[in-house]
């Protein structure tokens, strides 16, 4: 079957036509031969019966008068019919009266009722011999079926010739007919090939008939139309895409340029920042020595010339000492602040529980304020000094600004994916929302200097440390009720080292 599958439609058509023709012909011929055989047998039987009737009539006198010689003479007439094997006359008491046989040896059957039988390639007819209504004997004739086989042979021969002729005709006609089907198909295939080679979708196949092939061609043409449309659309889209890509490339180039500029700016900025820090540090450091000298001198003046100064003088001197001390603290603060960026980050394992407990112990805590660590704090791997600065500043602030008769300060923390979130909540005065940003800026303090001793460096320092570690700090507050300072710290400082600060701050916000 696979051979049949792979042959061309032309061959298939030829095969189908030939097969159909030959099958029909063979079936018709078979039916014809069968019919012919039946008819021929019937006619043979009829003919032999007629012959038997005639012979019986001819020999009834001989039988009546027991004239064997005459009967045999009559039977001899059967010789004219070469197919008759034998003829035999039986008397009424079933004895052989006379016989004729074509061949030398012959076995005679017992007489039977009138009728014919086909048996062993022979036809036997029995006929009773009646004389005036009285049965006086039986005639038996047997004929071979030679004629039948001759007839069948000649029929078969004719049928074979007809079969060959019809096959030839069918082949010739099919080769003409198949053009009707395979012609348009081949044309279609050729067009398809041309289209796929030239990519020319504007081509169309000419439709010549309204049959299935016509439908196929219609569908094909329709498909071509669609492809053409799609192709055009695709081309258009491609053009657009190309231009878009070009634009994007341009934009990317611009972005890269901007980025480069930005990098340069950042580099310059960080350099200038560093320089500024260095400058601040050096300046602060350099200012420290003369300030200490001024302070010492003022103290010395106050002590040594105490009796020489009047009350106003003493007042002024003590103001001088105080101011110089505040300045000293301010300079220390600036130094610390500038050191955050300067000093190398020596990370070590710090148990925050121990650290915070020690800080609390170090704070001169009034009796009306309590600090609670809500849950066990983690052990972090950061510079211990910085951690101390962070907690000390935040706790000190909370204690320092506490205005309630019973102060509660609560330290808490939660663990998130990649970072810790700490919170230090108090029930202090709270901060107005407009100051949320201001409090983290250096030298800013919300209360007058003389009311609460503050350098304005604490929270900016904390912010700087936290941000240096890749964390974030912010405040939530309600005036008169309290404030919560939140800050985050990544689990490790690696993220910072990778410079992925933005990402972490983004995570922290979520």
């Amino acid at each position: 079957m696979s051979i049949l599958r792979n042959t061309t439609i032309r061959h298939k058509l030829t095969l189908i036509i030939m097969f159909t023709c030959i099958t029909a012909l063979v079936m018709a011929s078979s039916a014809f031969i069968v019919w012919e055989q039946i008819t021929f047998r019937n006619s043979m039987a009829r003919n032999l019966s007629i012959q038997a009737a005639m012979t019986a009539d001819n020999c009834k006198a001989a039988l009546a008068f027991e004239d064997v010689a005459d009967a045999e003479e009559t039977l001899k007439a059967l010789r004219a019919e070469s197919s008759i094997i034998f003829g035999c006359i039986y008397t009424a008491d079933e004895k052989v009266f006379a016989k004729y046989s074509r061949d030398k040896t012959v076995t005679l059957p017992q007489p039977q009722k009138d009728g014919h039988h086909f048996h062993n390639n022979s036809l036997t007819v029995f006929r009773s011999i009646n004389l005036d209504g009285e049965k006086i004997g039986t005639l038996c004739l047997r004929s071979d079926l030679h004629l039948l086989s001759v007839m069948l042979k000649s029929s078969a021969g004719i049928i074979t010739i007809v079969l060959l002729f019809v096959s030839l005709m069918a082949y010739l006609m099919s080769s003409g007919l198949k053009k009707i089907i395979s012609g348009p198909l081949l044309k279609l295939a050729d067009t398809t090939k041309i289209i796929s080679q030239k990519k020319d979708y504007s081509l169309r196949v000419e439709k010549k008939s309204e049959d299935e092939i016509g439908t196929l061609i219609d569908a094909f043409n329709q498909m071509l139309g669609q492809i053409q449309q799609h192709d055009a659309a695709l081309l258009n889209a491609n053009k657009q895409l190309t231009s878009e890509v070009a634009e994007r490339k341009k934009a990317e180039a611009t972005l890269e340029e901007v980025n480069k500029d930005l990098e340069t700016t950042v580099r310059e900025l960080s350099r200038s920042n560093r320089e500024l820090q260095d400058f601040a540090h050096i300046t602060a450091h350099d200012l420290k020595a003369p300030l200490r000298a001024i302070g010492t001198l003022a103290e010395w003046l106050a002590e040594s010339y105490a009796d020489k100064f009047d009350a106003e003088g003493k007042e002024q001197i003590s103001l001088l000492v105080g101011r110089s001390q505040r300045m000293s603290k301010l300079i220390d603060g600036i130094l610390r602040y500038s050191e955050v960026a300067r000093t190398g980050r020596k990370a070590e394992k710090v148990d925050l529980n121990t650290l915070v407990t020690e800080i609390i112990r170090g704070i001169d805590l009034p009796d009306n304020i309590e600090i609670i660590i809500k849950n066990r704090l983690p052990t972090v791997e950061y510079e211990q000094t910085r951690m101390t600065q962070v907690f000390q500043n935040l706790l000190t602030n909370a204690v320092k600004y506490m205005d309630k008769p019973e102060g509660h300060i609560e330290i808490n923390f939660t663990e998130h994916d990649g970072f810790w979130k700490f919170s230090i909540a108090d029930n202090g005065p709270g901060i107005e929302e407009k100051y949320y940003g201001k409090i983290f800026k250096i030298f800013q303090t919300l209360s007058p200097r003389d009311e609460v001793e503050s350098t304005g460096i604490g929270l900016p320092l904390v912010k700087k440390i936290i941000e240096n570690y890749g964390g974030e700090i912010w405040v939530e507050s309600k005036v008169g009720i309290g404030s919560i300072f939140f800050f985050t710290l990544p689990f490790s400082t690696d993220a910072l080292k990778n410079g992925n600060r933005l990402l972490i701050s983004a995570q922290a916000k979520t």
Partner: protein
Amino acid sequence: MKRKTPSLIILTLFFFVAAMPSPARADSQPTPEYQVKAAFLYNFVKFVQWPEEKPADNNDIITIAVIGNHKFGNAFESVKGKKVRDKKIIVKFFSRFHDTNDKNDLKKCHLLFICPSEKQHLNDIIEIAGQANILTVADMNGFIQNGGIIQFIMQDKKVRFQINLSAARRAKLKIRSQLLRLAKKVVEEKSPKKD
């Protein structure tokens, strides 16, 4: 029908008379030769056609008669009651010709077998038979030469017959060709008499 009674009497008489002198009794076993001849006589009826003017008791019977001292014995037993052309076959035995008073009875038979004992009356019998359209059969030599119609002969120990076609024509009998074919000799007189 009125004549039936005398004919029956004659028949009875005949049986009575014939029983005594006849060498072969009606109930005795015939020789095979006469058995065959009896069958032949019966078969002749089938191949012969009588004219319509043939005198007979009625049209429903065909009478086979034997005259003289015969040797048939009971050879006709098998023939009795048979029908030919829907006519019943009746077998009659006449005694000697000179004893037969009523020649009319003789005339009414269809086939007459003449025994050799009646040789001296042959011409008379043939004369009567010719007029009464009777098929005459005998096994005497020279029978057909003397105007008889069918004569039995023996050939190879088999019963055969010869036919005088002219005599048959004179008696206005039609003999079917099949029978003529079987005849060993068919005689036709060159100058047939016209009766």
